[in-house]
C-alpha cells in the first residue's frame, strides 16, 4: 500500500496534475460539489421537501444583497417559498445521482458489449457494431426524449414521477451506450494481438477470463476518460429531460426541473429562481468537461472519435 502511494507520488499523472492550474481548480470545485451532494440533508439551511418549513408568505424573496432580501435566505426563495440554496443543494444531489447511475449503466452495457465485439470479432462484432452505428445515426438526446415520452405515456404522469430516478437512469443509460462500446472495442482491438493475450490463450484460459481479467484492465484508461466525459453529458441530458417535463417532478427537483419551474418567473423579474440553478448546472458541466479534456490529454488513450 505504502509502496503504491509512493509510486503514485512520483507518477507523471500527479506531476502534470500539479502543473495544470485549470485541472486543479476544476478538481477542487468538483470535489466540493460532490461533498455538497453527499451532505445536502445536513448542510442545507432547510429541508425543501418538508411542508412544515415552507411558508407561502416567503415566496419570491430576492437574494440577500438585493432590496427586500433577507439574511435568512441567502440566495432568495422560489415561487413556493422554498430557500433557493437548499433546493439547489438537493437538486445537485439528485442530478449527480442520476448522472452517475446512468453512466454506470452505460459503462456496464458498453464494457460487456464492446469487450464481446472486440474480442470475438467476426460476426458478433459486425452485428453489435452495426447496431451501435444505427443508434449513433440518431442524436442521443432525441432517442432519450423519445424513450422518455413513451415511458410517460405508458406509465402515466403520476407513476412516472414516482419512478423518475430509476427511469431516467435507464433512459439516459440506454440512449448513449454506443459511445462506451465503441471506445472499449477500439482499445480491445489494439490489445488482443499482444503477446500476453496470446500467452493466456496458449495456457488454455477460458475466453471470459481472458476478456475480463486480462484485456479489460488494460483498456481501463479509456473507460476512465470516457466515464468522466459522459457524466457531464448525462447530467446535461437529465436537465434537458427534466426541463421538457419528462424528468424529475418539481416536488423532488433536479437542477433541470428547478430551471423549468423558475422559467416563467423571469417575466416578473424574479430571475434568481431560474438563473442560480442554471449557473450551478453550467459550472458542474464545465468543470467535468475541463477535467475530461485534461485526463484525455494526459492518459492519451485510443478513443473513438464520434
Amino acid at each position: 500500500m505504502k509502496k503504491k502511494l509512493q509510486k503514485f507520488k512520483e507518477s507523471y499523472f500527479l506531476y502534470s496534475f500539479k502543473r495544470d492550474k485549470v485541472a486543479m481548480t476544476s478538481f477542487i470545485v468538483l470535489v466540493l460539489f460532490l461533498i455538497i451532494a453527499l451532505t445536502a440533508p445536513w448542510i442545507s439551511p432547510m429541508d425543501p421537501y418538508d411542508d412544515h418549513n415552507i411558508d407561502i408568505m416567503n415566496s419570491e424573496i430576492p437574494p440577500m444583497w438585493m432590496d427586500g432580501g433577507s439574511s435568512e435566505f441567502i440566495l432568495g426563495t422560489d415561487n413556493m417559498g422554498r430557500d433557493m440554496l437548499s433546493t439547489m443543494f438537493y437538486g445537485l444531489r439528485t442530478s449527480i445521482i442520476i448522472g452517475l447511475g446512468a453512466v454506470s449503466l452505460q459503462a456496464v452495457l458498453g464494457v460487456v458489449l464492446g469487450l464481446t465485439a472486440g474480442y470475438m470479432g467476426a460476426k458478433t462484432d459486425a452485428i453489435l457494431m452495426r447496431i451501435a452505428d444505427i443508434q449513433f445515426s440518431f442524436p442521443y438526446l432525441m432517442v432519450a426524449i423519445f424513450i422518455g415520452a413513451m415511458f410517460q405515456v405508458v406509465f402515466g404522469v403520476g407513476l412516472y414521477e414516482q419512478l423518475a430516478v430509476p427511469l431516467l437512469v435507464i433512459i439516459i443509460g440506454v440512449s448513449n451506450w454506443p459511445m462506451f462500446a465503441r471506445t472499449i472495442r477500439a482499445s480491445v482491438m489494439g490489445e488482443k494481438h499482444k503477446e500476453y493475450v496470446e500467452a493466456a490463450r496458449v495456457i488454455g484460459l477460458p475466453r471470459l477470463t481472458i476478456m475480463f481479467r486480462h484485456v479489460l484492465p488494460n483498456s481501463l484508461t479509456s473507460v476512465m476518460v470516457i466515464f468522466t466525459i459522459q457524466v457531464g453529458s448525462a447530467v446535461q441530458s437529465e436537465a434537458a429531460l427534466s426541463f421538457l417535463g419528462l424528468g424529475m417532478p418539481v416536488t423532488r427537483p433536479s437542477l433541470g426541473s428547478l430551471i423549468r419551474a423558475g422559467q416563467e418567473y423571469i417575466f416578473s423579474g424574479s430571475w434568481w429562481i431560474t438563473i442560480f440553478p442554471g449557473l450551478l448546472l453550467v459550472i458542474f458541466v464545465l468543470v467535468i468537461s475541463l477535467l475530461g479534456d485534461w485526463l484525455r490529454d494526459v492518459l492519451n488513450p485510443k478513443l473513438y472519435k464520434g
Partner: protein
Amino acid sequence: MFAFIIRRILQAVVVMLVISLMGFAIKNNIGDPVRDLVGERVTPAERAKMADDMGLNDPFLIQYLRFIGHAVKGDLGRSFLYNKPNLEVISQHAPATIELLMGTALIIVLISLPLGVQSALQPKSKLARFTMSFSTLGISMPVFLTAILLIYVFAVHLQILPSFGRGETVDLFGNGYWNTGFLTRDGLEHLILPCLSLSSIMLPLFIRLIRSEMMEVLETEYIKYAWAKGLSPARVWMVHAFKNTLLPVVTVFGVQMGITFAFTILTELVFQWQGMGFMFLEAVQRADISLLIAYLVVVASVFVLVNTVVDIVYGFINPTVRIVGTR
C-alpha cells in the same frame, strides 16, 4: 459501387422496418384507436363492433403489415388531438421547425467562419483567446438556459425583441401549409432569439473545428510553397488555405444539423414556437400515441434517408468507405 449502393439501401429499409415495428408494437399495446376516433361517449358494445370492423382483433403480424401498407401510401393514422390525419398535422408544423433550423444554420455560418479563421491565423491575439474561452463555456451551457438568459436580457430587461411565438407570418404558397416568418419584419424579429439560442450549441464546435483544420492546413508544404512564391497573405489564406479547410467542415455541418434537430424541441418549448417539437410535447402531454408514433416514423425516415444519401455520396467521393462498409 453498385453493390455498395444496394447494400446501403437495403440496410436503410431494414432499419426503417425495425423502427416501425417498435413503433407499431407500442401503439398496438397502449393506444386505443377507437377512443382516438369517437371519444369516450360511445357504448362498449358499439366500440367492440368498431374495433372488429377496423381489424383490431386480427393477429399482430397482419395488423403490422396493414400498418406498413398504409404508411407506404402516406397514411400514418389520425391524431385525436387535432382530429386530422397525422401526416397533415406534422407537415403543417414542419415549416416552423425548418425555418428555425435555416436561421440557425445561417447564424452559425456567419459567425463561426470569420471567428474560426481569425483564431487560426492569430492564435495568440486577444480576440482569439476570448473566442476560445467563450466556446469552452458555451459547450457547457444547456440550450434552454441560453434561451432563458436571452429572453431575460432582450425581452424582459431591454424589451427590444419578442420572446414567444412566430409573429406575423406570410402564407407562402397560398394553401396554408407553409407560413413563413422570413418575409415580414415582425416574423424576422421573432426568429432572432430562438435561432441565436439554438446556434449557441453548435457555434463552439464549429469555431474549434474550423480553427484546428485551418491550422493544420497552414502547416502543409503547399502553403509554404505559396509563401515562397511571394503571394500576398490574403491570397494564401483565403484561396490556398481556407478553401481546403472547407471540405471537412461541410461534412461535419451536415451531421451536426441533425443533432441540432433534437435541440429544437427544447428551444421550441422555451419560445412557444409552433413547430414539430412543440407539437410533439403537446402530443406527449395529451397521450396522443398515434401522433407520437407518426412523428417517430417521420423523423426516423428523414434521418435514415439523409444518412443513406450522405453515405452513398461519400462512396463516390472516397472509395475507401465502400471497403470499410463491406466488413
